[in-house]
């Protein structure tokens, strides 16, 4: 972790700085202790020089290093800071207490998403703590001059839907937010990662963050996806293969023809769940698909500026021969419509698969954990996952709430009815997505089929707002985490694609969408 990559753009901090207790110089190996062998595996393998071929991650990193400290920690410049109501109040309070300013309000955007009800917005928010968090954000953005999309604005939505949609998140940028799914914006070809509240405060005060360079991981998916297989299935298959810690310490670059073939929404779905593979961030190289997506968006460069930006963005993709610390390859044809069965995102099965038997697990602690998962999920070892009845279907979240996701779900829902006893919810990712869907008539398709058509927000992804599972309910969900209690205490989550979720809604059971003869385009 401590090796320095690339030449620092400023020099290292002078070791002759007058006050040793306040400067950022840190002596190397201060008490002469040797490195421990297990630590060495955590270092990037390459010793890059200025002439070496670089990865997309290397290029974005290098262009944002303000200083490199003597131990390899970089002061990394941040282009965009996305702020929401849950992880920011303590950071604003910290600024206030220290008498510090927010350095660049015009590089910052605030929205409310986690706490907001997705029902009638004209009524006051009932839950007092949620209301307080939202009102606190509104006071803070006013005090610090931060641009803000309020609850009743058509631009309001999930922060990771809003950023790309508004042209706030652009290729080559560094983007942070106090939310782990900030990895979503990596689909733009930007370095985007989640940070904690202390770091939120650090970015507010300095427009930088302290970081060591991550390792480079390449996940290459070559070939053509079969009909009915979507970006969600791709990323679930990847997590199933490398595990929830497979990407720890790495930034994953998703590449290969199957990734290049995805539209921007699909790439966002894949990068969104890079964090579920343990990675710091996910990336897709910017290309014409990216540039066409960006063109004309509200905060994107316009006219000659756009052309100048594109010329720069075209220099970003990884160089031929760039080195990766870890490489994983997969064939697109082998990926099937997939879903999770357990309480970790790595518990992935193809829809034709069966729940694993803990008896086959040699490690005692892992066996106990599998048994606990089966019991929590109320599943039996060896049972076929298809055909399991569901109580709730949730189509939404920063993973799958874009217009393309809603179209895919609508293609399955059209002309069908939500199965009796099933509650099925559609929660668009933003007010703009909702308006677009209504313009296309998707709301009618869903309402006619018996789905709820709701307002934008994080909704049932995380159980912080009124949309929650009750104990024991089983949910087919297009969100990103199936942890115990994630969607509400005692709730049981199966992660899957919008098309698969819609198939579960209309059949009442976990279903192979390919059997419905209504494959989304």
């Amino acid at each position, binding site marked *: 972790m401590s090796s320095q990559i690339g030449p620092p753009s400023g020099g290292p901090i002078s070791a002759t700085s007058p006050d040793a207790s306040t400067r950022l110089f840190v002596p190397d190996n201060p008490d002469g202790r040797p490195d421990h062998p297990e630590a060495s595996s955590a270092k990037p393998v390459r010793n890059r020089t200025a002439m070496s071929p670089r990865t997309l991650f290397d290029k974005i990193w290098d262009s944002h290093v303000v200083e490199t400290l003597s131990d390899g920690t970089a002061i990394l410049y941040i282009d965009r800071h996305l702020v929401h109501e849950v992880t920011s109040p303590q950071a604003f309070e910290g600024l206030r207490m220290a008498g510090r300013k927010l350095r660049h309000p015009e590089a910052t955007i605030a929205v409310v998403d986690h706490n907001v009800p997705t029902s009638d917005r004209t009524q006051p928010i009932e839950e007092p703590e949620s209301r307080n968090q939202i009102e606190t954000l509104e006071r803070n953005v006013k005090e610090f001059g931060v641009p803000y999309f309020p609850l009743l604005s058509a631009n309001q939505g999930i922060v990771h839907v809003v950023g790309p949609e508004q042209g706030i998140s652009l290729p080559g940028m560094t983007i942070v937010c106090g*939310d782990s799914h900030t990895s979503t914006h990596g689909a733009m070809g930007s370095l985007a990662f989640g940070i904690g509240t202390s770091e939120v405060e650090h970015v507010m005060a300095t427009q930088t963050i302290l970081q060591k360079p991550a390792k480079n991981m390449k996940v290459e998916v070559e070939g053509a996806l079969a009909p009915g297989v979507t970006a969600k299935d791709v990323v679930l298959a990847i997590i199933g293969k490398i595990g929830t810690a497979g990407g720890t310490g790495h930034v994953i670059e998703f590449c290969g023809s199957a990734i290049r073939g995805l539209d921007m929404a699909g790439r966002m779905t894949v990068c969104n769940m890079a964090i579920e593979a343990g990675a710091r961030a996910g990336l897709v190289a910017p290309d014409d698909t990216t540039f066409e997506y960006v063109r004309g968006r509200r905060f994107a460069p316009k006219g000659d500026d756009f052309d*100048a*930006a594109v010329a720069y963005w075209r220099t970003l993709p990884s160089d031929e021969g760039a080195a990766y610390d870890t490489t994983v390859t997969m064939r697109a044809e082998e990926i099937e419509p997939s879903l999770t069965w357990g309480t970790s995102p790595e518990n992935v099965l193809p829809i034709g698969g069966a729940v694993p038997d803990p008896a086959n697990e040699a490690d005692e602690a892992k066996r106990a954990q599998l048994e606990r998962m089966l019991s929590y999920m109320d599943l039996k070892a060896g049972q076929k996952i298809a055909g399991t009845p569901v109580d709730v279907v949730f189509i939404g979240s920063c993973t799958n709430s874009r217009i393309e996701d809603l179209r895919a779900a609508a293609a399955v829902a059209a002309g069908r009815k939500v199965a009796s006893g099933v509650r099925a919810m559609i929660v668009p990712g933003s007010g703009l997505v909702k308006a677009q869907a209504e313009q296309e008539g998707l709301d009618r398709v869903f309402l006619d089929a018996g789905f709820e058509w709701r307002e934008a927000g994080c909704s049932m992804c995380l159980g912080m707002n009124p949309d929650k599972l009750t104990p024991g309910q089983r949910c087919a969900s297009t969100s990103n985490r199936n942890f115990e209690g994630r969607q509400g205490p005692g709730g049981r989550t199966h992660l899957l694609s919008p098309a698969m979720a819609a198939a579960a809604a209309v059949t009442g059971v976990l279903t192979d969408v390919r059997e419905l003869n209504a494959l989304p385009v």
Partner: protein
Amino acid sequence: MDKFTTLTAIAAPLPEANIDTDKIIPARFLKTTKRTGLGVHAFDSMRYREDGSENPDFVLNREPYRNAQILISHENFGCGSSREHAPWALLDFGLRCVIAPSFADIFFNNSFKNGILPIRLPREVCDTLMEDAAQGANSRLTVDLARQVVIRPDGTEVPFEVDPLRKHLLLEGLDDIGQTLQQEQSISAFEAKRAKDEPWRTVIALD
């Protein structure tokens, strides 16, 4: 932030992999606007039964582990969300150190910012330390950050690795914002150069 120098304390064994941040602090407790007061909700779903009573099987509900300041666990501790409420909840409960074979990156980072020391040690070493911890109050572990060793009850020392900058900040109890702001000139120079070289960059201005 409180300094972290040497800690001699009861250690609690939690032999489970993938302890996620929703387990450490469920989302419904994230509605606070403060950093303190979350200790009572730490490990809520494991610690309390449905009726709200304590689950006697959970390690932190048992003596002497109610007073544990060190937690030992398995792989990928702190996976999931970026919520700093996770280390805030651990700290408010009284934990100052977590030892595990691996940690999720954001949790690892957040811990240091709050005076909690996360220590990576191989699985078999964690299992050995858990056996020590299972002996309860008679079996305290000592974590010496300056020397980078965990000292077992029998006096055996287990060395660990820690990033020099983070170690320095923890030992001194320093806030890194103040330190970074000392580089204000470099940040301004960076911004000026970019404004000149890349004039196409946009800002977020609402009408």
